[in-house]
């Protein structure tokens, strides 16, 4: 079963808190998930300042700066993993180094009804 682990964090604290992980630690953790055979994809994201939001309404494309809503925590990265069940997914998600400063939302991937 596939789970998407969305890593959220207050960007101002992500790299400046005493618990903030270094890039090397993040990369080492991603490798260990890879090694366990559960990794499908994982990436860290550039700051939300670089985000652009698009919408298609009545066939017309609208483009705006930033994310669609002001929130305390921003999406900072993600893991797409393959896990036996929710417990296994929570185990992988909980050990993502950024979980120490932010939070990780774990969502099962839905099978499209086609």
């Amino acid at each position, binding site marked *: 079963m596939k789970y998407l682990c969305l890593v959220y964090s207050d960007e101002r604290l992500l790299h400046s808190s005493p618990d903030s992980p270094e890039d090397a630690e993040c990369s080492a953790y991603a490798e260990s998930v890879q090694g366990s055979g559960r990794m499908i994809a994982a990436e860290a994201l550039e700051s939300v300042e670089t985000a652009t939001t698009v919408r298609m309404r009545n066939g017309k494309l609208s483009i705006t700066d930033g994310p669609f809503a002001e929130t305390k925590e921003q999406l900072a990265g993600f893991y797409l993993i393959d896990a036996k*069940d929710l417990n296994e997914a929570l185990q992988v998600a909980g050990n993502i180094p950024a979980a120490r400063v932010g939070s990780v939302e774990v969502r099962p991937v839905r*099978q499209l009804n086609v």
Partner: protein
Amino acid sequence: MSDVRARVEQVYREDSRRILATLIRLLGDFDLAEEALHEAFFVAVERWQRDGVPDNPRTWLVSTGRFKAIDVLRRRARFKASQPLLLAQLDELEQADWSGEDVEDDRLRLIFTCCHPALAADAQVPLTLREVCDLTTEEIARAFLSAPAAIAQRIVRAKAKIRDAKIPYQVPTLNELPERLDSVLRVIYLVFNEGYSASVGAELTREDLTRESIRLGRLLMELLPEPEVMGLLALMLLHESRRPARTSPSGELVLLDDQDRALWDAGLMAEGCALVERALSTRRFGPYCLQAAIAAVHAEAPSAAETDWRQIVGLYDVLLRAVPSPVIELNRAVAVAKRDGALAGLLEIEGILARGELQDYHLAHSARAEFCRQLGRVEEARAAYQRALELTRQEPERRFIRGRIKALGLP
């Protein structure tokens, strides 16, 4: 004929939860398992009349339920032949080990699944009562004074999450166990507390809930005799033993000091005290054991005046170190007052309130009122009782506080 029907009903009463738990494990789907359970019992009435009652009715029912579920899945698969999940589920089911050996573990799995921390806290209690205790949605709603539709919705959502997020149907591994067991014990204790001192309404207690929580405690104890499980069961038994003395014949609240101890249930007390000793002797005890130990000190005192308050304060000290909590501090303050006098207790409570804690907790204000009254500080006592009255939603307690205010005399 009526013999067979009575036998089916007996098996349903005694074993339907075990059978359901096994079917949920095999099917991985609560709704499908419930449907299969009912179909299996439906078939049993007719089949057992014709062929006689099988040697092992439980195994027969699990096996029949499993075949019924396979039928259901086959029918569904015909309509949605392209659904790979459904086919995988069918495949798994046809090959699954369904021997009757594992049934007790199945019930334990069911409890842990219903109390999984990934489920909303307000769904864990109704889900456990529904699936493990077989209370109807209406019964649960009545017990918690909620609308049946709201309870039903929480249960439906929780079941959907178990299925869609694939919350596993298993007993946690040893390293996860302490935390997961905590959440199971918390759910059981919540059910008990709601039954023992219903937070709202005309009745002081709800026996159906205390009965179910003790039943769950016994079941857990049978399956997983950990010290904290013993502690929780002992705590519930010791509280329950006082029930006959806790309300007057007219339904009024009777405080521990004023209870007629001859009314306490000696059997429950003895069972509770023995469990406390057993739990404490493991040296791996936690908060439930300590609270049970405090209840046991009360149980062992022949009269309120002969209570060993020194020991109770000592137990509260240990408890506070394990779980710092203002409510436990408040209880300790009451014990300190018993040991050292009302002024000592009052100072403790004022310390807690001055920190800004328990300001909205009616028992903090009634305890403060009681100590002020004992010290002859009548106006302060009246104001504190007034505050407690504003914060209490439960009718017998409100009557009790009004009685106390009246007894203070006119302002």
